[in-house]
């Protein structure tokens, strides 16, 4: 049985019932990884928040989400809170603001541990420092005693990763975890993420708008456009035989190494037939 099973998920917002996710289905096996790729507003983050049961109050959800056999869409707040941070966790996009600025980061990580397990304070501290070390933070003891503003973006993102991984969840959702970081740091953080996911055996839903980034972590990729899944396949399939015009554009725009200097850069719109209307527009 799969770990995460989403069937026909539709999310609408507000009084005007604006559709953010439209009939999305996906399935993720235990320890599996799936990249979700799409431009901003394509419904990637909304899908992730729906899996966590963290959608804002004005969202109307239909369809079903099953995580480790539990129906997310029909659980109450207390039931969801028990799963979050424990069975499923999330690495957010903005490491600069995702941490509480008034609390030492070690304590923030320890809190996640102690919220779901009955670890004694001393034991929790040990585990926190070990986890910080595991996500590749040098001098983890000192980092644990730091406030977020004393750390760099890359360090903070590793702390956020440590928070997400400390309870060895079955599923880790990464929402553009490296978008806010510069490229060299990005590569290091991704390599470390790949490594710790392998180590813990957690499944991963990896959200990004960048095909190159997704390909470093995931084999299977799902392409979203305007709330719908337009294409799924392996990274290699997508690169070599993109089917949907949007995917073709995505692949072409990610191959900047093949550009001739002076030539106009391709945009996604180049790959649509001039007469064809984009879905939902």
């Amino acid at each position: 049985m799969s770990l995460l099973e989403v069937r026909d998920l539709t999310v609408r917002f507000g009084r005007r019932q604006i559709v953010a996710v439209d009939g999305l289905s996906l399935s993720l096996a235990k320890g599996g990884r799936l990249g979700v790729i799409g431009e901003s507003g394509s419904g990637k983050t909304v899908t992730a928040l729906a899996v966590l049961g963290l959608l804002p109050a004005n969202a109307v959800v239909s369809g079903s989400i099953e995580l480790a056999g539990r129906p997310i869409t029909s659980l109450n707040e207390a039931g969801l809170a028990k799963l979050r941070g424990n069975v499923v966790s999330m690495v957010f996009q903005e490491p600069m603001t995702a941490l509480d600025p008034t609390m030492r980061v070690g304590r923030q990580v320890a809190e996640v541990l102690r919220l779901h397990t009955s670890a004694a304070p001393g034991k929790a501290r040990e585990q926190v420092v070990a986890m910080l070390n595991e996500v590749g933070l040098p001098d983890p003891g000192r980092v644990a005693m730091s406030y977020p503003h004393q750390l760099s973006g890359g360090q903070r993102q590793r702390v956020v990763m440590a928070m997400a991984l400390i309870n060895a969840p079955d599923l880790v959702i990464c929402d553009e975890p490296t978008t806010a970081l510069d490229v060299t740091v990005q590569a290091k953080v991704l390599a470390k993420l790949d490594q710790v996911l392998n180590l813990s055996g957690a499944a991963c839903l990896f959200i990004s708008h960048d095909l190159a980034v997704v390909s470093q972590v995931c084999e299977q990729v799902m392409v979203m456009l305007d709330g719908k899944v337009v294409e799924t396949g392996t990274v290699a399939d997508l690169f070599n035989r993109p089917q949907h015009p949007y995917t073709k554009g995505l692949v072409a725009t990610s191959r900047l190494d093949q550009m001739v200097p002076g030539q106009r850069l391709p945009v996604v719109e180049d790959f649509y037939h001039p007469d064809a209307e984009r879905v939902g527009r």
Partner: protein
Amino acid sequence: MRLGIRIAKRLGVFAVTVVGASLLVFLITAALPGDVAEAILGTSATPETVAALRAQLGLDRPLPVQYLDWVGGLLTGNLGVSHLSGDPVLTLLGARVAVTAWLVGFAMLGSLLIALPSGLVAAVKRRSWQGVVVGAGAQVGMAIPVFWAGILASMVFAVWLHWLPANGYVALTKSPLGWAAHLVLPVLTLSVVQGAALTRYVRSAFVEVLNEDYYRTARAVGWTPARALWRHGLRNASISLVTVLGLQASSVLVGAIVVESVFNLPGLGSMLLTAVAQRDLLVVRGTVMFLVVVVLAISALVDFSYLLIDPRQQTERSTQ
């Protein structure tokens, strides 16, 4: 080093404000119509006897001389003597300050005990009936004048139910139980009125936190909305709340003056009102100056409290 400079600057501001306030207090009290000589001698006194008494009390000297005399006394801790009773103003203040300090201290605490939980509920449940009830309650609480709330409380709990004394005061050293019983209604009155105003600030500070990324992180690791707000919102919200508390200190003191006269408490407020009525200028000036210094000291403390609450203010620069 930078921290030291910052503290020194703040203390400088404090000193300048105190000097400005002393001038203002002096001028306003000097401009009051009528004087203590008339109050002492009564309406039948002749202009000559009034003038003689004024000269005796030093009230006929030029204002700058009177001001410098008074400020010089302030600096050496001599606030002068009451024209009426002849007691030193400092002694009068000392006898009264405890009552006001208890009242204001407990009322501040009480208003926080009311405002923090209700503001939290109002923020978390802002889209359901609980939030509306708290919001409406706060509005009503703010609309009630403090003297009316005091009269209402004393009518209900003292006159009708006979649970508590309607007015008066017993010193803590005389009877702790009597002291507590006499303070309950005044403190309750002031707490409710101040707490209502504070609730709105607490609510908006917490609503701001609800939109922060770290709140979403806290939710994503398994905190329920209320606990996420409490653990990660309170300290962040405190940064704006201590500012409000500092600003409220002056309104609590004003409220205390009213409450003291409603419940007939022998505090600074009732002393001040009597002294104003009798034109006992040195008592008025001494009391007002004391209240001004307290308010200014509170606002300086508020500025220093940011250093304790917000770790970002302690570090001079990022370590990386």
